[in-house]
């Protein structure tokens, strides 16, 4: 069975110094939209590295953000094709990237590779190229076809993927998708995510008098009260969302789904609470119950609320403009447009027709079936590479555009770990994890080719 993995693993091991030198070149480029030169340089670097690995490469332009989409492919023995999804821009959702001149620092010490962007997602990107190169150099061919698509997003909600899928459907065609990221958890167990949550993010706005009126005019309506009552009508203290029909399209987790999240739940505890400084999970849940709630329950979060005066001292005025930012996080198979319609109808029915609901963003959730051949292949591959079972997460807790590839299965595996400090100054990966991640790709392709053949 391991005709492919063993020699490829040796190839990867023997070249580690070189791969890390290469990764350093890639990682020194501050590839964020604020440094357009570095974005183009990163795309070019990645394309050349893929060519060197033996892939047919194209830099696709134009794109919505102006930076090339790096596309590469190589046929294999089987007609099945796996697509790798990655990006060469550096994630900057919470903290901006600041370069020293036009170079980002790279530090390799204590078996770790420090660099802003190495965990999300450059380390993962290169591990896959090296894995495919190792297979080609040692076996002379691939067991199945591979495609690489790596985006250079200009902003978090860049529609580069949407553009790629509509403009190049023939390039996007594949049987399965291997998504970016999949970290080792707090107990150093490899994890893989099979899906993502979706969300609807909206702002609820209320307006009162044209000019702020003194609060002594107790007869005047107060939009801050309306906002409070409207929000309280959306969800109560039981965390149950009160919008009619909200749960209609939720896919209940299967026994298999619950079992794997229970594994995660057994590791969920005080460490996480302490890190955030929170005494308890909602509803006093712990362990498995908290994990099930977290992964499978859609949720409604007030992300921000503002109105009137909340600064030092007192100001006696009725607020004129009030607003709340509300995030409704969806699970498979809720549909954003359906939830938007139901939320608006809920507000109207409860007497809040005068509150404005402005949808700022939304994406759909997606979940790959636990019994998909791709998932089984990943589980077997993990046993071979890590010597321990893959901890499967039926869905990630965040959003991603995985649903764009539906109904193709997606599995996310990667090279980072729970302590990678993503988007923080100490962002890093461990070299050993990177090497295992590259071997995992080899094993996964080998196993999936066999699944596909049977």
């Amino acid at each position: 069975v391991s005709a492919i993995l063993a020699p490829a693993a040796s190839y990867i091991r023997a070249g580690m110094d070189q791969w890390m030198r290469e990764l350093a070149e890639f990682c020194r480029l501050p590839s964020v939209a604020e440094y357009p030169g570095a974005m183009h340089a990163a795309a070019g670097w990645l394309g050349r590295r893929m060519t060197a690995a033996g892939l047919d490469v194209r830099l696709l332009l134009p794109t919505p953000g102006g930076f090339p989409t790096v596309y590469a492919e190589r046929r294999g023995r089987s007609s099945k094709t796996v697509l790798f999804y990655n990006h060469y821009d550096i994630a900057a959702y919470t903290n901006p990237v600041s370069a020293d001149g036009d170079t980002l620092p790279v530090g390799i010490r204590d078996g770790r590779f420090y660099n802003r962007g190495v965990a999300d997602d450059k380390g993962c990107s290169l591990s896959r190229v090296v894995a495919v190169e190792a297979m080609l150099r040692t076996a002379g061919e691939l067991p199945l076809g591979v495609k690489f698509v790596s985006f250079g997003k200009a902003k978090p909600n860049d529609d580069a993927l949407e553009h790629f899928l509509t403009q190049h459907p023939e390039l996007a065609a594949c049987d399965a998708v291997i998504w970016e990221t999949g970290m080792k958890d707090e107990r150093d167990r490899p994890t893989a995510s099979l899906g993502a949550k979706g969300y609807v993010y909206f702002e609820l706005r209320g307006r009162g008098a044209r000019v702020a009126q003194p609060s002594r005019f107790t007869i005047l309506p107060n939009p801050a009260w309306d906002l409070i009552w409207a929000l309280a009508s959306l969800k109560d203290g039981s965390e149950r969302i009160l919008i009619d029909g909200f749960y209609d399209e939720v896919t209940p987790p299967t026994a298999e789904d619950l079992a794997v999240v229970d594994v995660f739940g057994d590791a969920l505890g005080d460490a996480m609470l302490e890190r955030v400084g929170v005494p308890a999970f909602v509803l006093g849940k712990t362990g498995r119950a908290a994990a099930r709630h977290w992964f499978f329950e859609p949720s409604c979060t007030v992300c921000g609320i503002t109105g009137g005066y909340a600064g030092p001292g007192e100001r006696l005025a009725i607020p004129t403009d009030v607003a709340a930012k509300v995030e409704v996080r969806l699970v498979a198979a809720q549909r954003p447009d359906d939830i938007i319609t139901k939320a608006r109808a809920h507000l109207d029915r409860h007497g809040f027709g005068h509150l404005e609901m402005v949808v700022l963003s939304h994406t759909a959730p997606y979940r790959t079936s636990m019994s998909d051949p791709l998932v089984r292949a990943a589980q077997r591959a993990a046993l071979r590479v890590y010597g321990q079972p893959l901890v499967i997460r039926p869905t990630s807790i965040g959003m991603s555009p995985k649903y764009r590839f539906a109904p193709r299965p997606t599995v996310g595996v990667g090279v980072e770990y729970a302590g990678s400090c993503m988007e923080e100054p100490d962002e890093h990966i461990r070299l050993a994890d990177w090497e295992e991640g590259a071997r995992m790709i080899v094993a996964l392709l080998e196993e999936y080719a066999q699944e596909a053949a049977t």
Partner: protein
Amino acid sequence: VITLGHKGQLYVELACRTAHADFPSRMTALPNAAWRIVWAVASLKGPDERVRVPGFYDGVRPITPEAERAFYSTLSGDVSALRTRTGVRAFVKNLDGQAVMRYTYSEPALGLCGLGGGYTGPGHKLVTPGEACARVECRLVPDQDPERLPGAFRAHLDAHGFDDVTVEVLASNPPYSIEPDTPLARLVADAARDVYGVDPVMVPFATGIGSRYLFRRHTAMPIAGFAVGYAGSALETSDEHIRVRDYDEGIRHIVAILARAQGLPRVDDRGAGP
């Protein structure tokens, strides 16, 4: 309009802190300070405007037949100017006409002056607020006692499971009012008739807060109030103004009061009031 007192006030901040700081909203199994504040504030009052804090209405003077005759029967029912000036679509509880003024001059109210928590800048940010607050203002009528209310709020919040929501008093002023048949009230009203040629509108208290209660605390002197503004004065807005004719009349009202003041009984100003 002659005011025989003023409303009282209790201005409190309700605050909740659930985490060190805001954290990513993907951690949906962790508590949210903004929801705690939303639910806590919503528990205080519903759209019926009835305050649900037990003990809140303690001490509210019932409307006596004398008060009905002196105050409420004479209130104006024309609220179109207020509606136009503020641009509001309706008044609370959909009140209209004289009921608007009756509400203003008889009901204590729970206002909400400020809300804050989490991300409120442009666009969207996926955070769960670690802390949030609300500024709640009670407008009190005689003889509600603002000193008793913080305890009432505390007990209410605890009873509803909001022991994580703190109550901090930022300001506290008791209400004050004299009876319409006190000699001072009668004198000011008579003087107004001299000047304006019509019966003045007597209200039990001004809608704003004031310091009259301090005089009551330290002396027995009764207090009545009147001024030179009018219903359209647009107080505390950039258009705040008075009419010159009202100003002139206001001065003459003072003169008329002083002319009649010899008839007032002397008050022992060393004795504390009730």
